[in-house]
């Protein structure tokens, strides 16, 4: 096709003074890695203030205990980028743990597949409801939160029965260490890489961004919106289920009192990581920084030691506020300069 090629420079947006682009790039960097920077500073301060903070064991503890939150946060990142939210992950997490422990008596495969099937199915259902009826994800997944917790109670005799993991291979999955880190940590790393590629380098990932950026436009641009949304909630359910199952393997039992309020931690981690709740922007590196930041803050508060339990809450609330404010200010400083 031959078209009139207009003069290269006139009539375009190209005329910007040198430096603009560089500044935009730096801005981009700060926006996307603000959480990473805050994390670095926090770790540094912690290392200076407390000797026992930077011991390898403490570091390993933080990483290991963060890994479950991290797996759930991967799914949540997809959901939030697509412009939705998933409040049901905490319930998925605990339900999966109970089911995995229960299933472990029938072997490793059942221990993994049972929770994944159930949590995946519920994720799928939520996705279908969100995508097909246009109901607010907040409410649909709030119902999911209630429903799955009810299901968990029903499965565990109103919480009276704690199933113990009865399969060595399954327990090993949660407890074996490779190069100083447990299997769930490696699984998390693998999933983050996979998720990163999926999000940034596949048509599916681009569709997720498009839907979150403008659903209306995405529809008109021919994005299979319903399918993408359904997959996103399915993924979130599966990942929360996987995290719950792995956690059950680690704890060797299907603990019934887990997961309450987990959704808020996960959302906080994702948002601290620079993903916008309005959708359309964000990424997994930020989310991982957010997850670790939460773990580090918790660890630091424990190091301080003298705080009463109530004061600990005040401090962690203030910390959280400080982190998001710092991140906002970083973000703004580069824009207005």
């Amino acid at each position, binding site marked *: 096709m031959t078209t009139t090629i207009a003069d290269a420079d006139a009539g375009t947006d190209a005329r910007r003074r040198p430096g603009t682009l560089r500044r935009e790039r730096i801005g981009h960097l700060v926006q996307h890695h603000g959480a990473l920077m805050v994390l670095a500073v926090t770790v540094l301060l912690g290392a200076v203030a407390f000797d026992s903070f930077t011991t390898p064991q403490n570091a390993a503890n933080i990483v290991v205990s963060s890994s479950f939150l991290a797996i759930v946060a991967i799914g949540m990142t997809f959901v939030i980028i697509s412009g939705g939210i998933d409040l049901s992950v905490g319930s998925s997490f605990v339900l999966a743990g109970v089911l995995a422990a229960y299933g472990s008596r029938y072997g490793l495969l059942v221990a993994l597949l049972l929770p994944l099937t159930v949590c995946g199915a519920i994720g799928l259902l939520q996705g279908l*409801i969100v995508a097909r009826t*246009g109901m607010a994800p907040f409410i649909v997944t709030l119902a999911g939160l*209630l429903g799955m917790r009810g299901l968990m109670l029903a499965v565990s005799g109103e919480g009276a029965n704690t199933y113990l993991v009865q399969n060595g291979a399954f327990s090993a999955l949660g407890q074996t260490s490779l190069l100083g880190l447990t299997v769930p940590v490696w699984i998390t790393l693998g999933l983050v890489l996979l998720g990163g590629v999926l999000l940034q380098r596949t048509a599916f990932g681009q569709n997720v961004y498009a839907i979150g950026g403008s659903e209306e436009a995405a529809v008109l641009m021919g994005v299979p919106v319903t399918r993408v949304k359904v997959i996103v909630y399915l993924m979130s359910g599966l990942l929360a289920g996987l995290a719950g199952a792995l956690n059950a393997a680690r704890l060797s039992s299907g603990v019934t009192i887990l997961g309450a309020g987990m959704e808020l931690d996960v959302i906080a981690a994702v948002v601290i990581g620079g993903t916008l709740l309005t959708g359309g922007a964000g990424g997994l590196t930020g989310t991982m920084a957010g997850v670790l930041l939460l773990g580090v803050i918790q660890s630091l508060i424990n190091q301080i030691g003298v705080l009463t339990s109530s004061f600990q809450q005040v401090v*962690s609330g203030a910390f959280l506020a400080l982190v998001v404010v710092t991140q906002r200010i970083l973000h703004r400083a580069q824009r207005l300069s």
Partner: protein
Amino acid sequence: MAELAAAPHVWGGRARLLTWLQEYGVYASVLALLLFNVVFTPHFLEVANFRTQLIQVAPVVITSLGMALVIGTEGIDLSVGAVMALASAMVVLYLGYGAPVAIVAALIAGAAAGAAGGALVAYVGVQPIVATLALLVGVRGLANVLVPQLTEFRNPTLITLGSQSVLGLPLVVIIAAALTVLVAFLVKRTTFGRQLVAVGGNRAASRLSGLPVRRVLITVYIISGLLAAVAGVLATSRLQASDPTSLGLLMELSAITAVVVGGTPLTGGRVRVLGTVMGALLIQLLQATLIKHNLPQSWTQMVQAVIILAAVYAARGRRA
């Protein structure tokens, strides 16, 4: 463009029913639940029962009103439950100076907490959900620091507030009703109300139209904090004790549900005050029904999930 009458075939039965449901879905749900109870629940049609339900729902209604305003600006306030606890703590802390002083102190604390969240949202640009999440954690901690454990009180004025009736109507219920009218007036009749929904509907356009966007935002969070504090005071007076650890726990979820079930979309730009009250009533009735029929917790939660979905489905926005 043809007028309504010229196109009966598109604007006929099904569409009309759908619109009706959308507008009045929550009313229909409440009615259905009432009917169910009248038929199946013993001792339901008693004055005492309605008193109980109304008294129990009053604090939920009051916090939901504030939540509805916040949601109208496309925000969300997760801190309402914690603010209730803070107000409760302030009440017993200042009860030594008399009930009026204590109540004013509680309200000031609530407004201050709201202002803190609002400032983060309006002036720093933090996303509402995180700003108020930080507040949720911190404020509940603060309430606990102030009043470390459940503290009973014997102040007659404060106890009266929770148990007194005027003309057969419990004072708490009258207060909730009055606040509902006030908020409805605010939304429908004042400049502030109009500006609030405009900010929620399109912030950029509101700014270009010269609306004081930031002031509107911070005010909305202050009102939400204030109303949560009122709810906290009432709940405290009814409990005859301050219990900052558990007072208002998960209230944010109830309030958000009430607002959404009542037809206010989470995407902002619209506030339905009466719908919100109905939403709160629906949740209250639902819980009461499940308790009265002694369902196990597992069932209670699953049934709640289904009914909330059904009610919101009925009340959901029409799609193209």
